[in-house]
């Protein structure tokens, strides 16, 4: 990915210099290899800080909402990975961003890494992670370690949507076209096959960790409301905290419902959750249900497509199907 980084910096520099764009929305390197921060770069000389490596999992498309609204002149160059382009299209569909103000460089990706997974493997004090093909060299304050790259992929990359860009002005990619990832519904199916009591225990355990920091909501490109119902004192659902198990569930059910049919499964919610709650399992449940009941639908595949929850057919399944299928 070092090669892609070089090409991106070069091309972004050119586009800034010739005035095609006035800002570049990319990633800025941090103190360690894993702590890159999304950032705007406004001149070619700032680009030396631009990072594009194995920890650039963040989906930058949501930043475009605010960037399109500010009064700054010129176009915004944004770096989008193949999976990020779905969110980008979904935002266009919902009129949240202005295509004319944006220049999209699609950047190739071979799967991004999850620092939390590395830590869970027991690596302590990680200061540097070197990408060495299928293997990772991990430098820590307690010595050098190794692990398989595939074992450290972000959940969203394990279930990669494929390497096709659904929106771009140009593409920078040196990676070989890759395969699609694992079946993303495996985790959902596993839960579906449990008994009702087991599922209840599973979610109680997971959701009770929620600290209601709203990171999942604030990072979500589909959660782009001007004011969230959970922040609105007159909505009847406002709350700042999970005071009990009901609130934990209410927040996550409603959030998943509000993005159902609009969620591109970008996986950001799970990536950012400080408590490691597998929130993607909620979104994927809706996606799986929608696919099974109303036909395959991938949000963000196509600009302007009609989301399944603002659509219907005369012979849709009846709600009783829920009561009739699967385990009790």
């Amino acid at each position, binding site marked *: 990915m070092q090669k892609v980084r070089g090409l991106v910096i070069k091309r972004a520099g050119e586009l800034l210099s010739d005035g095609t764009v006035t800002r570049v929305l990319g990633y800025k390197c941090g103190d360690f290899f894993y702590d890159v921060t999304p950032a705007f770069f406004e001149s070619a000389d700032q680009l030396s800080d631009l990072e594009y490596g194995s920890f650039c999992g963040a989906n930058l498309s949501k930043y475009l909402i605010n960037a399109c609204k500010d009064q700054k002149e010129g176009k915004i160059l944004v770096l989008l990975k193949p999976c990020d382009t779905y969110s980008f299209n979904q935002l266009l569909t919902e009129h949240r961003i202005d295509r004319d103000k944006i220049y999209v460089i699609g950047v190739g990706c071979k799967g991004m890494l999850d620092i939390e997974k590395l830590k869970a493997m027991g690596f302590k004090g990680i200061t540097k992670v070197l990408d060495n093909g299928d293997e990772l060299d991990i430098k820590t304050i307690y010595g050098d370690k190794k692990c398989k790259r595939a074992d450290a992929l972000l959940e969203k990359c394990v279930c990669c949507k494929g390497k096709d860009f659904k929106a771009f002005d140009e593409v920078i990619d040196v990676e070989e076209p890759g395969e699609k990832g694992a079946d993303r519904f495996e985790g*959902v199916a596993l*839960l*579906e096959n449990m008994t*009702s*009591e*087991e*599922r*209840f*225990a*599973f*979610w*109680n355990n997971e959701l009770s960790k929620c600290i209601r920091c709203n990171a999942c909501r604030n990072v979500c490109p589909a959660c782009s409301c001007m004011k969230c*119902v959970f922040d609105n004192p007159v*909505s*009847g*659902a406002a709350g700042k905290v999970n*005071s*009990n*198990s*009901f*609130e934990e*569930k*209410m927040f996550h*059910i*409603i959030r*998943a*419902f509000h993005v*159902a049919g609009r969620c591109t499964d970008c996986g950001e919610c799970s990536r950012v959750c400080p408590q490691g709650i597998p929130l993607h399992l*909620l979104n994927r*449940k*809706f996606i799986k*249900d*929608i696919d099974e*009941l*109303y036909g395959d639908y991938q949000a963000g595949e196509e600009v302007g497509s009609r989301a*399944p*929850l*603002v*659509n*219907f*057919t*005369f012979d*849709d*399944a*009846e*709600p*009783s*199907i*829920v*009561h009739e299928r*699967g385990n*009790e």
Partner: protein
Amino acid sequence: MQVNENAKEWKPLIVAFCCNWCSYAGADLAGTSRLSYPADVKIIRVPCSCRVNPMFILKAFEKGADGVIMCGCHPGDCHYSTGNYYARRRMTLLFSMLDYLGIDRKRTRVEWVSAAEGQKFSLVMNDFAKTITELGENVKLGDIRCKK
């Protein structure tokens, strides 16, 4: 949940959202025809089943409802032509999600009841109330602060 002080017997609390044009009128007809169903069922009138926000249903559970049922016009007969089709998708997905979280799936239901189906309204409510009574008190989806 309500506790009947004298009998010390648990009675379920059931909230029914009924569309003004069909099911609410169906409930009226059940009344006119003196077709009884348990008093545990309390009806809230909405203009159309598509007005029922999943939040209302969760709110009812939060505050202590033991079962929530939504009734609308039969598909194809919506007063607003398409409302119940949207409602059908919304409720299917919501119920599926509640089931996925391990919450008793039988605590929620959708029924299509026309203005002429007083008998069906009564049968549906009797059956739903029976189901909820069998399931017992809703403990999985309520706010503990609302318990008396």
